[in-house]
């Protein structure tokens, strides 16, 4: 399940939806990304997330599919918010269900690493001293590259 939305999400409710009626799932790993009030500057008051409608959904589906291919998974839920967010707001939710924990842990990390470097989202941070577009981080690229090396 993949969704790009303005509205907030409820990780607990999403996990229940993912596992409802299923008894073959032995592990669910969940990652929630939140808006920090410090990043490139120390006083972030809001965050605007822009995306490329159409391509975003395709890119997320492609990343999820790659994860399904690499690990034995029973289900994936991926929600990413767009629009204007405040510090503390949840931005992204990745839920990965598998029979055994290792697959779910690794696939969840993989999906986030690829999402950060391949899905067309852009963040603009608003601070008391003005707003600016967030720069890419080399560490994110390194995190994503480690999965390429493994292949």
């Amino acid at each position, binding site marked *: 399940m993949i969704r790009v939305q*303005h*509205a907030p999400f409820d990780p607990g409710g999403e996990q229940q939806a993912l596992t409802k009626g299923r008894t073959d799932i032995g592990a669910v790993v969940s990652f929630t*990304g939140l808006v920090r009030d410090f990043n490139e500057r120390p006083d972030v008051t*809001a965050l*605007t*997330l*822009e*995306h*490329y409608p*159409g*391509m975003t959904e*395709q890119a997320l589906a492609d990343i999820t599919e790659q994860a399904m291919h690499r690990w034995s998974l029973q289900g994936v839920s991926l929600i*990413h918010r767009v*629009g*204007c*967010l405040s510090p503390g707001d949840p*931005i*992204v939710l990745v839920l990965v269900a598998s029979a055994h924990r290792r697959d779910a842990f690794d696939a969840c990390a993989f999906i*986030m690493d690829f*999402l*950060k*470097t*391949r*899905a*067309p*989202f*852009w*963040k*603009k941070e608003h601070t008391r001293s003005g707003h600016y*577009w*967030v*720069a*890419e*981080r080399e560490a994110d690229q390194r995190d994503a590259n480690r999965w390429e090396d493994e292949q």
Partner: protein
Amino acid sequence: MSGSDNMNLSHMNARGEAHMVDVADKEESRREAVASGYVQMQSETLELLVEGGLPKGDVLATARIAGIQAAKRTHELIPLCHALPLSKVEIEFRVDEAASQVDVTARCRLNGRTGVEMEALTAVSVACLTLYDMCKAVDKGMVIGAIRLDAKTGGASGDFKRQPGETPIVTASCSDGEVGMPPRRASPGLRVKCLAELRERMGVSELDVEFTELEHTNIAGLKQALRQRDSRFSLLQGQRVLCAVNQVMGSDDTPLSDGDEVAFFPPVTGG
């Protein structure tokens, strides 16, 4: 139809009186019209609109319904319009942060004997008015602008597509990816989008490029053609500028075909 007939006002009879045109003997054909406009507002209002913080609730959903309803009731508002069984009414909104406005596009379609441009224009107008109504509690200075027909196809008067104005570049007020491109145009051209920081730095969100402008039919060739149009596009040469062709990541060597959608954007920073 001769040229002079073309200049006649079809809603006037020989005595110069208003009359409704008899369309019973006209051939049925597929008619489509696209119209657009915008509502410009304070950036704070736009933010509230996007995050759903306005007192009257979901602005865009309400304005969409208003636009659709209005298209269906055009004949009740415009005296000499026929009541039409529209087969499709589509309202699209695009939030343009750079210009601090909401772009509104309406597309109407039917198989029938008369055009649907009045329906598309009415839909845009009422959707814009509804946006104003939904936001006026926080911003009374909003401006509704540039309501116009972008394209129409079908019917005896022929196809119409608004030509770009004097400036070679369509800036922030341009309309969404699916409009302005009638289905039976001989050459659809390339639709180019600039996203996020790149859009703001170049002041361009979308533009059309004729396929024949390209010396080399790949991304590098497109960048070259754009640079020849305007020096601001030299920003696209930057090492960290990414691109997608038909929403799949590409590079300078990616070949292009007529009708492709190309997007340029900075490195992604989601998650």
